[in-house]
């Protein structure tokens, strides 16, 4: 018995490094296959593939940074607002105060780093849990962006900004894709080769062990949030350049989209397991999926449904794989017959039954009134 589990574990250990990309790769293949059958000409056009890459590029820096934050068992919900606020401040510096673009862009990214620093201090020094802390700071940053920009749409920026957002190196790939892939590469290097990367994993794996071995846990958490803030601001600059416009309400769903990409890519929400390559494939998967929905002319609002389903199914898949190597599989029927399952089945039946009853009652009353 103990031999069996030891064997299982080595098999799991052997495929462990690849698990993170198996999930998104399978889903990417599924999308490619499906679109290849239904809409091959429109989906695989070069212009459409460029569109997918451009969309993905915007999320790459943030997904890289979020990989570090989540691996440390953290979360950052404020990135959309950081992107909007940094973009707005950059726009004001350029349009109102005539700052040259080459200085306004680094200022925006530094401001993002500062906002990340504030997030980090709120979480580590004021001891506000990251979920609530960054949710509240999201309100603060979004509010400040609204205070500064009111309802204004700031548009028309110097070439440097639009190049960052949608320029192309002639005969090569778009500049934002270069930026996105570069930040991903930097993230991979940082994760595997630096103290910051090593401690990110150890903090997520065991904060107590990290503390006991002398790792500065709080400082490295702050580093992750600073990186996150800077990358969110970079995305804000890229978004401003891509649209050649920015307003206070821009980038509303950055946080959930980026968290989804990272989690789909196999980085564990429970900490300690990081995959930059997984995050990159997660970003690509989401962009391909959203583009596929557009290509199929499915109503925009279904995107939200599809994203949610992808997140739940991939997290459930990882949780299932984790369980399987811990205490073996158990037949589904055995589980269904347990007392707990019976109680849950009764609860579900009750809720569905009540719903049906109310619907029937409502329909009856409606026909009566008519």
């Amino acid at each position, binding site marked *: 018995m103990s031999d069996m589990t030891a064997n299982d574990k080595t098999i*799991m*250990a052997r495929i462990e490094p690849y698990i993170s990309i198996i999930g998104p790769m399978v889903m990417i293949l599924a999308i490619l296959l499906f679109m290849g059958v239904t809409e091959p000409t429109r989906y695989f056009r070069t212009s459409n593939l460029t569109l997918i890459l451009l969309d993905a590029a915007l999320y790459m820096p943030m997904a890289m940074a979020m990989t570090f934050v989540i691996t440390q068992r953290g979360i950052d919900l404020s990135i959309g607002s950081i992107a909007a606020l940094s973009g707005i401040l950059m726009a004001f510096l350029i349009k109102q105060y005539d700052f040259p673009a080459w200085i306004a862009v680094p200022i925006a990214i530094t401001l993002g780093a500062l906002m990340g620093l504030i997030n980090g201090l709120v979480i580590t020094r004021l001891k506000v849990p990251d979920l609530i802390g960054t949710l509240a700071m999201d309100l603060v940053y979004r509010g400040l962006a609204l205070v500064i920009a009111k309802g204004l749409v700031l548009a028309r920026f110097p070439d440097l900004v639009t190049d960052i957002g949608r320029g192309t190196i002639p005969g090569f790939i778009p500049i934002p894709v270069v930026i996105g892939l570069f930040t991903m590469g930097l993230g991979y290097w940082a994760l595997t080769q630096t103290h910051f990367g*090593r401690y990110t994993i150890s903090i997520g*794996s065991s904060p107590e*062990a990290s503390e006991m*071995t002398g790792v500065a846990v709080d400082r490295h958490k702050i580093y992750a949030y600073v990186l996150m803030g800077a990358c969110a601001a970079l995305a804000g600059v890229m978004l401003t350049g891509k649209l050649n416009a920015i307003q206070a309400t821009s980038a509303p769903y950055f946080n959930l989209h980026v968290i989804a990409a990272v989690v789909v890519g196999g980085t564990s929400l429970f900490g*300690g397991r990081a995959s930059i390559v997984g995050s990159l494939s997660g970003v690509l998967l989401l962009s391909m999926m959203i583009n596929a929905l557009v290509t199929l002319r499915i109503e925009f609002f279904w995107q939200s449904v599809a994203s949610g389903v992808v997140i739940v199914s991939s997290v459930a898949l990882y949780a299932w794989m984790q369980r399987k190597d811990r205490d073996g599989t158990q037949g589904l029927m055995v589980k269904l017959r347990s007392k707990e399952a019976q109680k849950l089945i009764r609860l579900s039946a009750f809720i569905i039954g009540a719903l049906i009853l109310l619907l029937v009652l409502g329909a009856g009353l409606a026909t009566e009134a008519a």
Partner: protein
Amino acid sequence: MTDQPLVQMRGIVKKFGGVTALGGVDLTAYAGEVLAIVGDNGAGKSTLIKVLTGVYQSTEGEILLNGARLEMGSHSDAIAEGIDAVYQTLALADHLTPAANMFLGSELTRNMLGIRVLDNKLMKSEATRVLDERLGVRLRSMDVPTDSLSGGQRQAIAIARAVYHADLRVLVMDEPTAALGPQETARTLKLIKTLRTQGLAVILISHSLDDVFEVADRVHVQRRGRGVGVVKTAESSVQEVLGMIVGAQDAAA
């Protein structure tokens, strides 16, 4: 075993507010011996070793290493003097490789374009070497996460961390076998014997008198914050030590 004690704790008193956890304890450990500390819960075993490893500062009393008085304000001071501890939790990050865990908090680095980066290759080879040479442990793979290893192997990594980093002279092990099965316990006890032959003083805290009588040379018995006696395992028995722990040796005699 030489005649000069490696470590001497003299008249250690530790008070937490009005509570006296240690009421004047003496403890002596020699190089190349395993000294077990036994006692009931609340007897002051943990407090005693926390004073020895610099985690707590004693209210009264002194600690001598090779006859020289130590001033330790923190655990890192103790490590610098060659006194380290392996805790029951082992302080391992399960997702990291054995080598990464062994060097956690004090990674080996190399220079890359003026930046200090991790030298993963060197850490791996050093970890492999220390595990093999000092502890006689060979892992099937050094690239797996630590949580895929057995309890005894995990113990070995935690010990290897202590053995590598300090010019280690005293190793305190807090309940190393408490969470292990019989086979893993046997392996861990073997590791302790290996360390003894390398001239370390191993101080072992354990509830299992069987383990204590298997590896320890001497047993220091704590009761209610005081050392109530030291016996040689060769000249004593489980019954006698048990009697000392519960304070019944007079009645028994």
